[in-house]
């Protein structure tokens, strides 16, 4: 067969496959946008739910999800980045560090519902945090850690060894080299990892199911020991647990969650682009 024809056929086929990948995403976004957009209004975003969640807004769920993301970040970012710095810069290659790495890889593949049950056992019951923002954030943080650690470690390792050598040759301690040269270079990668991890945690239902999420709580949380509603769980509830729920509220909630996650993604991309512009080696 004519090689040009083969090439054309091949590329055509590949283009088709790529298209097939994109179609479901476009359909999902399209469907949610089409049916959810009419529900979005100032009231929907800023009011408490009314009439058994069938009317009013979803403010407590939005605030709850924002708080959980913040709480997760507060715990998972310092721990995750710290662990990554230790593993990449300080830890020697021993049996122990290899076991730690293996554990991190495995943690990343644990189903989220298992984290949820773990959170109930440790934070809610054993440590007596109750179902609270604290317990939920900690559970989500543990689930997010492996993503943050492995992406951050990768970003740190991508910084050429040479910079550490030069820093040492100028009389810098290893930490001074890390702080002044390596970390700033690795920052875009670390930020990407952090946001990817937080994105995943923001959309999860299972880990917050038993640790923090309230079925219906038309009030904003007052402390970290309070329960809260959260967008993913709220979506689950109004889609499956409440009969006669207007479709527009369901899609409106889904759209809100989608916009939240997508906007975080865009922010991550912008930050990364900003830092990448400034570095080259």
């Amino acid at each position, binding site marked *: 067969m004519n090689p040009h024809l083969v090439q054309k056929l091949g590329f055509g086929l590949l283009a088709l496959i790529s298209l097939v990948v994109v179609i479901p995403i476009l359909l999902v976004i399209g469907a949610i946008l089409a049916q959810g957009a009419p529900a979005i209004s100032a009231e929907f975003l800023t009011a408490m739910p009314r009439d058994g969640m069938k009317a009013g807004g979803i403010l407590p769920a939005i605030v709850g999800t924002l708080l959980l993301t913040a709480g997760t970040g507060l715990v998972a970012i310092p721990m995750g980045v710290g662990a990554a710095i230790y593993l990449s810069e300080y830890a*020697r290659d021993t049996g122990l560090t290899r076991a730690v790495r293996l554990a991190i890889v495995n943690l990343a593949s644990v189903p989220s519902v298992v984290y949820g049950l773990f959170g109930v056992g440790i934070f809610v019951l054993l440590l007596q945090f109750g179902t609270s923002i604290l317990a939920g954030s900690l559970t989500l943080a543990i689930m997010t850690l492996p993503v943050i650690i492995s992406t951050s470690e990768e970003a740190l390792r991508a910084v050429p060894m*040479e*910079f550490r*050598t*030069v*820093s*040492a*040759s*100028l*009389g*810098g*301690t290893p930490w*001074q080299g890390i*702080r*002044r*040269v390596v970390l*700033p*270079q690795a920052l875009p990668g670390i930020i990407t990892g952090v946001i990817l991890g937080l994105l995943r945690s923001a959309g999860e239902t299972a880990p917050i199911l038993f640790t923090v999420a309230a079925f219906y709580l038309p009030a904003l949380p007052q402390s970290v020991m309070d329960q809260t509603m959260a967008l993913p769980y709220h979506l689950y509830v109004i889609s499956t647990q409440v009969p006669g729920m207007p479709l527009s509220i369901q899609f409106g909630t889904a759209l809100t969650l989608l916009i939240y996650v997508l906007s975080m993604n865009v922010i991550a991309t912008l930050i990364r682009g900003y830092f990448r512009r*400034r*570095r*080259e*080696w």
Partner: protein
Amino acid sequence: MIKIRAEHVDAYYGAKQVLADISLDIKERQITALIGPSGCGKSTFMRCLNRMNDSVRIFSLRGDVYLDGDPIYADTYDVVQLRQRVGMVFQRPNPFPQTVYDNVAFGPRVVARERGADLDSIVEESLRRVGLWQELRDKLTQDALSLSLGQQQRLCLARVLSTRPEVILMDEPASALDPIETLRIEDLMRELIELYTIVIVTHNMQQAARVSDWTAFFLTDDGLTGKLVEYGETGQIFTQPDDKRTIDYITGRFG
């Protein structure tokens, strides 16, 4: 005056001996060139002088190296201080991917905790000393990687000078540069020995002959262990060396 004295230095990577019985006196405010074919241990030896081999886990050293009479491999010797006193310029220009200013300010900032106007004047003085101040005084906030390679290498030299060293080690500092930039670096070295002791590793015979006061010729006969064949005044090494192997090398018969 002897600035650095190496006495019977043996160096090992694991079980492999890479330097055997190197004894060498480096004179203060003079330029000492270490020459020899690839793999002869000249770079390894130079890195023994500021303990840059410490970070290589399997590296070990026997013998002694003295800086101003103090043994730098003594357990109590402060390595951070050693590296401020014995700075290093690398083969490839390697400024940090930061501004010109931040590069030169690195040492004084992180090590001596200099700030503000003091730091500004150290940066200016260091850039002046390498002849970059006129070119870069208005570009201090520019990314160092946007400079030409020659400028980058002189910036790296300024970065070393800002830590106020006494000795500067240069590991083939001009091998990535074009002839004009190479000459600038060499001129600079001749100016700098007013204040500093310089040790340079070079593959370039003409460079060693042009720039150095003393020349040490390293060689390995088994492809592994480097030995010092001959050490003396540069003029003598290049005109009437004692050892036949030195003659062979500098006349280009091998290497």
